[in-house]
């Protein structure tokens, strides 16, 4: 049982870090549906760098950097060019999917480095993700830059007349957001599942995206959601351990995704928006034009 929970918490770490990134971006008004793409880039590049140099730290730094770069690209399209954020996000996903398959192919297989240390099986990154969630909550709700960031996502024209540089704030937020997604990908590729394979992320980015809505853009609620989905994921991999012989394992595999779809559909209903709509950043997805 301990092993099941350890695997669940380790999986939740990756959801948490990626979704925290998405929360930062969305709180500033920029939606990036290409979380999966940014994570694939982070995972693949960090894997290659770590494998070639034999250095974990370099691997992580490379994963974070490439994530930030993807964020920069997304910011350029959605802030400077004012393009459709969903379309561009899909573009990032498709690009990540195709390009990482191509770049990573020669490195297929295990990482071949000694595993990172763990505490009774629990990854230290899990603790880091808790600290990160608390830190981001504090930043968003207790600091002036955090207030500025949220204002830019709620109503950029108000932020502008209050003397805030909307463009700069959005660029910084989206780049930081991308960096976290890249970091989440790196944790996946270097710690959680250090075996590179074609499309080895298998949709985790999309679950992270759904978790942002699920969490009402709140880092602490997100932690709960991540752990729930981490556990669901483990159940879907090993249904026999908990509930033997109910469904075929292939049906279990779809569970996290079915729940993701249900959550996203519920979140987009009138019923939801009339009750909880106030949590959604008002300017989310809208390009800002003076």
């Amino acid at each position, binding site marked *: 049982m301990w092993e099941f929970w350890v695997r669940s918490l380790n999986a939740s770490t990756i959801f948490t870090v990626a979704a925290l990134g998405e929360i930062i971006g969305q709180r500033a008004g920029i939606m990036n549906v290409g979380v999966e793409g940014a994570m694939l880039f982070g995972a693949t590049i960090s894997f290659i760098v770590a494998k070639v140099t034999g250095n974990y730290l370099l691997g992580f730094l490379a994963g974070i950097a490439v994530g930030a770069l993807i964020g920069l690209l997304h910011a350029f399209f959605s802030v400077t060019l004012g393009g459709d954020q969903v379309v561009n996000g899909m573009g990032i996903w498709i690009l990540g999917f195709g390009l990482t398959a191509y770049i990573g192919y020669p490195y297929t297989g295990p990482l071949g480095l000694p595993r990172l240390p763990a505490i009774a099986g629990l990854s230290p990154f899990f603790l880091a993700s808790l600290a990160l969630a608390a830190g981001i909550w504090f930043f968003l709700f207790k600091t002036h830059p955090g*207030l500025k960031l949220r204002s830019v996502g709620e109503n950029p024209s*108000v932020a502008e007349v209050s003397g805030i540089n909307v463009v700069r704030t959005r660029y910084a937020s989206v780049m930081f957001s991308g960096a976290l997604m890249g970091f989440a990908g790196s944790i996946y590729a270097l710690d959680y599942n250090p075996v590179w394979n074609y499309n080895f992320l298998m949709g985790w980015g999309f679950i992270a995206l759904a978790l942002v809505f699920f969490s009402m853009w709140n880092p602490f609620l997100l932690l709960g959601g991540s752990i729930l989905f981490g556990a669901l994921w483990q159940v879907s991999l090993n249904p026999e351990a908990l509930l033997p012989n109910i469904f075929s394992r292939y049906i279990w595999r779809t569970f996290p995704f079915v729940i993701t779809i249900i959550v996203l559909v519920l979140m987009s209903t009138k019923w939801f928006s009339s009750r909880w709509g*106030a949590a959604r950043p008002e300017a989310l997805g809208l390009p800002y034009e003076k």
Partner: protein
Amino acid sequence: MGVFMTDEIKHGDVILEARGITKRYPGLVANDHVDFEIRAGEIHAVLGENGAGKTTLMSILFGLVRPDEGEIYVFGKKVNFRSPLDAIKLGIGMVHQTRKLVQAHTVLENILLGHPNTGLILDFKKAAEDVARLCDRYEYKLNLNDKVWHLSEGEKQMVEILKALYRGARILIMDEPTSSLAPPETKKLLETIQIMTKDELAIVPFITHKLPVVLSVSQRVTVLRRGKVVARLNTHEATEQLLAREMVGREVMFNLERVQVERGKAVLEVQNLSVYDEKGMKAVEDVSFSVHEGEIFGIAGVSGNGQQPLAEALAGLRKAAEGKVLLDGSEITHLSSMERWKKGIGYIPSEQRAVGSIGDFSLVENILMSYYYDDEFCRRGVIDAKKIRARAEALVAEYGVAAPNVDVLAKNLSGGNLQKLILARVLSRQPRLIIANLPTQGLDVGATEFVQNKLLEAKKAGAAILLISEDLDEVLALSDRIAPMYEGRFMDILPGGEAEREIVGALMAGIRQKAAEQ
């Protein structure tokens, strides 16, 4: 914080002076050598019609626009604003007409947003104490931890004022400060700003109409017309007539002739109507009334109390959730807007540019929108271009739409002219029922007068008119019966001739008690 440092500035000191401000736009001189000064501790109103150059002057004083010529001095020092931040630093605060607040954030967060000296981590406790002290000083009660979207319009405006003061503003520029307020809130605002002038703050309201407000509180008035200062007066020397004449450049009739028409049979009957708004909230609740031939039925209310969804539901643009709507005795609750037009409903929407017209269409095409389904102008789906053109030309002439020809695009018309065009289109179909939704909002004195007279003409001709307005004076002047609307309900239905301003005003703000006592 600057607010308490009143020693250095003496009452009546000139704290801002603008000399020879000129701003040209292609084909237009928005400000033509405007001289203007603001003294400490005064309320100095700036008056002008739309297009008189008020907005330009305001933007220049706040650093949003740079003048082509002229100089600005603040506290005797020449300044050169590059952005609003420069103006804010020198103690100029702006209270916008449309609220510049983050709805989802608290009052305190809004006040703190962008403040230069907050430091990285926000000290909410200290800030709350400072702001509470300001509130006390100006005798205003406000819960600083409320989310802004819970507040009334008047409270939201106060948040903006506090935000400016907290940043150390000595001069408050206010754009149409009373236009979105219910009468009790207007009264409260005027009291508050009068207290502020005792601290030698200068208040500069920019106003298009609402001349009584100007007269009741300001010490001085500057009147702009076509970019020039045409009058500079001490308020006690001015009258409403005089100010209006200076603004418009001719005599303006203030007392609309109350036309008495025999009230005919009911045209529109509304029974227990409820309507949801786009957020899924019940915006109109259980409303019942009727509008008769030769009657103007006025709905008075502050913006956002359900008037818009009600108007849209009656025009067929929004579904009715419950209740019935009858036109001339037959039910129309579920008819489309087109079917309603054909049955004789004419809708004058509040959003002239978004709903009332198509900006990229010519005047002819815009007129055509109310004619294309008519066999006289459209035979077997083919439009009779000659006929519709002749009709458009006739209407443009009759309604005095200022346009070089009927082929110009609607988006190039000014607000007043566009409203005349929409009026021409709707009224020329001689509707049985006219739904006039904020017909004079944003129009200047001249255009307002025109629109109101057209509605009275239609009434004389026997039309039933539903007038929705946020301007209490307008509702009182025009309506035969008045329904004050608050939070989706009619507070009462009062006879127009005798309705007292205070009672209707209180009902609009949801205060029923006062009315009951009197």
